[in-house]
């Protein structure tokens, strides 16, 4: 990890060597470790560290990027020259804006020294406690215990300087029995906020409760999606909120902005400052991230805009752009969904016949405009009858329009910081959804 001063010193060298008309530098540093266990033993255990420099040069309405992790003087000079040489070989872009001037940022405190300093022995001890729970229940545990720290700094030759430091930690657990499995996962900027015993218990209970799963005919069912399942579905819609995606007619919101697309109870916003969120308060060009209401009571209210997209579309930049140059534009990365007041247990009690889904897996987009997604249930899928979880069911494949699904939400839990495996963390609730479509079953 680099401090703001260390990153500034590196940028001074970039400025010394860059002969571009405008120069931007992104300096990233990471120190990360991950202990991985399976079959009740640690089988992979790694640590990494890296500092990298990415330089963007602008010359005569052209821009290009060159990056390196070699930080000696000759390499810094070389990366500056490479960026400029690449830019000179491009055709000019008449829409390219001058680099932004210095910006004011609202600070976010997401660095925890204790999390940065966790030792391999401490990670192994957490793995041991999780495995002990597996052994007690005659299960087999697999998972990760991970932590680290990173910094990202953005500078440009017009005086912009943004710096962010953050720590991260993660525990995920899969518990496997002879015919079933369960899963739980948690992430936090603070190591001490993770609860390995609770995660191990949740995963173990799901594995035990779903033993000897029964077959279920595919069809439309009421489903209760736990937050991780909701998250991994929603992730497939986030690129669609980009202003450029809509302008280029590749978004499912093309022709739908300002219209009611989802049910009344669906409200979604992007808010990097939310206490359960993570990430830097600036985008890939150094523009401060704004809070943006994306969906309000089912109406698509706003999109997010990178600076260049905003200029083209005569909108205000919202601070959601990717580093330039890129063809994607922008997307919300700090999504917060309004939740409800119904617990998952209450959702189960109110369900006559339906399914409780722990997580979804291998989700892919089948249709970009109807937003049909396919994927599988995994690690704990349960049949509910007369308000009670009755037994596990064999995993099912769904083919479901996300737009249609968000018009059939019957109840939601309070939103919580949630982590899955298909997308980035968000703050989302569990949902009870009517008429969710399962199209086939698998053998376990």
């Amino acid at each position, binding site marked *: 990890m680099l401090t703001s001063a260390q990153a500034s010193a590196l940028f001074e060298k970039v400025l010394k060597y860059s002969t571009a008309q405008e120069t931007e530098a992104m300096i990233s540093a990471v120190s990360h470790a991950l202990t991985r266990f399976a*079959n009740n033993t640690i089988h992979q255990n790694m640590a*990494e560290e890296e500092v990298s420099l*990415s330089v963007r040069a602008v010359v005569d309405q052209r821009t290009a990027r060159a990056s390196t992790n070699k930080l000696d003087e000759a390499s810094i000079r070389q990366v500056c020259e490479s960026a400029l040489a690449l830019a000179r070989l491009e055709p000019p*872009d008449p829409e390219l804006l001058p680099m932004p001037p210095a910006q004011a940022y609202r600070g976010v405190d997401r660095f925890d020294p204790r999390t940065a300093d966790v030792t391999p*022995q401490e990670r192994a001890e957490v793995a041991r406690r999780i495995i002990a729970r597996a052994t007690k229940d005659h299960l087999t545990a697999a998972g990760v215990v991970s932590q680290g720290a990173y910094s990202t700094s953005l500078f440009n030759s017009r005086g912009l300087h943004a710096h962010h430091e953050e720590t991260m930690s993660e525990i995920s657990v899969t518990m496997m029995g002879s015919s079933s*499995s369960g899963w739980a996962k948690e992430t936090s900027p603070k190591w001490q906020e993770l609860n390995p015993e609770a995660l191990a218990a949740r995963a173990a209970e799901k594995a035990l409760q779903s033993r000897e799963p029964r077959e279920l005919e595919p069809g*439309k069912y009421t489903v209760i999606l736990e937050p991780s399942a909701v998250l991994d579905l929603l992730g497939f819609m986030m690129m669609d909120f980009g202003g450029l995606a809509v302008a280029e007619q590749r978004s499912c919101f093309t022709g739908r902005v300002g219209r009611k697309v989802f049910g009344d109870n669906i409200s979604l916003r992007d808010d990097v400052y939310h206490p359960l969120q993570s990430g830097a308060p600036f985008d890939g060009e150094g523009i401060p991230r704004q809070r943006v209401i994306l969906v309000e009571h089912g109406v698509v209210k706003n999109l997010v805009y990178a600076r260049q997209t905003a200029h083209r579309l005569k909108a205000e930049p919202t601070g959601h752009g990717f580093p330039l140059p890129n*063809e994607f534009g922008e997307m919300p990365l700090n999504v917060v969904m309004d939740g409800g007041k119904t617990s998952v247990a209450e959702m189960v009690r109110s369900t006559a016949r339906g399914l409780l889904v722990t997580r979804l897996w291998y989700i892919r987009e089948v249709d970009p405009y109807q937003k049909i997604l396919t994927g599988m249930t995994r690690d704990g899928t349960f049949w509910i009858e007369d308000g009670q979880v009755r037994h596990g069911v064999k995993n099912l*494949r769904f083919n479901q329009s996300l737009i249609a699904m968000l018009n059939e939400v019957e109840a939601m839990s309070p939103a919580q910081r949630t982590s899955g495996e298909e997308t980035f963390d968000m703050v989302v609730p569990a949902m009870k959804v009517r008429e969710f479509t399962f199209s086939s079953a698998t053998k376990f």
Partner: protein
Amino acid sequence: MKDVAQQALDTATARGATYADVRVVDIRQRYLSTKNMQTGQVRDSESLGIGVRVIARGAWGFAATDDLSRNSVDRVAARAVEIAHASALCKTKDVLLAPESKIVDTWYAPCRIDPFSIPVSSCLDLLLKVDAELLKVKGVTLAEAAMDFRQIDQLFLSSLGSEIHQVKTQTGAGFAATSFSGNGIQRRSYPNSFGGQYQTKGYELVEELDLLAHAPRVGEEAVALHQADQCPQGVKDIILDSSQLGLQIHESIGHPIELDRVLGDEANYAGTSFLTPDKLGKLQYASEIVNVVADATPAHGPGLGTFGYDDEGVPAQVTPIIQNGLFVGYLTSRESAAALSLPRSNGAMRAEGWNRIPLIRMTNVSLLPGTWKLEDLIADTDDGIYMETNRSWSIDDRRYNFQFGTEIGWEIRGGKKTRMLKNASYGGITTEFWNSCDAICNADYWILWGTPNCGKGQPMQTMGTGHGAAPARFRRVQVGVAYGSG
């Protein structure tokens, strides 16, 4: 670089490692893209670092850094041993590796035209011309094209005394036309979706693809799809083009044969496999005409899974996977080979870069060609669909239940390719599907495709894999599944 690697090796062994290997990897990449006749990404990157993998106290440790100073290399080697000691706090048995020989060699992947020697302006000029051709087609709303070049220079040293220097150059190129009609989005790509074709070769790949010549057809098909009939739902015979079949092999053969998945190592993320060891040599995986190999040798072709040695210092090999339909082989590491009492690893351990441990990854997992001409195969099909170019893919975590969508379908009636079909999809259960294969086209139709984006592991690693295939027919397959009732 050898001094640095040797120093790391010496420090690790001095600190108590009973086995150590070190990789110093220097990766250079250039990515160029255009969109609607404007440049998109124009970027160069390079990443150099060292990864030290050790066994100490019978357990694994790995540490990596981009700081190659003497103090840093000593520190990171010592850290790898310290991490192994922590792993040993939570082990059930000592790590055991299948035997391997000391190897000292240098290997260069064939590369006729260094892609980094081609002026960026020439590359962009070609991509912009492709965009222009696509946009000439009324109804194309988005034209995108890209080239991707990578050179991987790696030095491997191990405590067995091995010293292996390998240099590989990889090239990728392709384009896509997207059309929005007011109530739907359709897309066609060439030569494949999600980036195009990738191989371990130089700029000659771009020349062979002749991108510009294919742009008008691809643009026209993207627009025409809006007016095409919806792919029907039901049971039909299907013929898959070679690129879609390549991905079918990847998902429903390549991943299940990874022995680390079989043994449970990937249970928390990528999943496990239905191919438990009791099935080796016994399971009729496919029909008798199906023969699949995992072949990392250059003789197989310039696939993304072609190399001289894997990242454990094991030579590239040809491994039969399916022989006349029978399941006969896994992809292994030295550790997993030992777990199954195999005499030697077949060399499938590959790491994304210097900062990742090697995992069992597909090499070139390919379906060997059959005997049919494609026109004869179509003429022999009474009621079927010919499906081309992947659009979506999904499979369960043990690799049984799969579903694929393709960009375009063509109805086959009475031995003739007739109307265009949109939103073509199919699904099934792996072994049932492969046992329904009754015809494979001959070597004239066989293409070694590259899948550049295969994800696996924690932390996630992206790897390129190769899949050779010629079009093949599968009987009585469920089609139209994706739009069944969504």
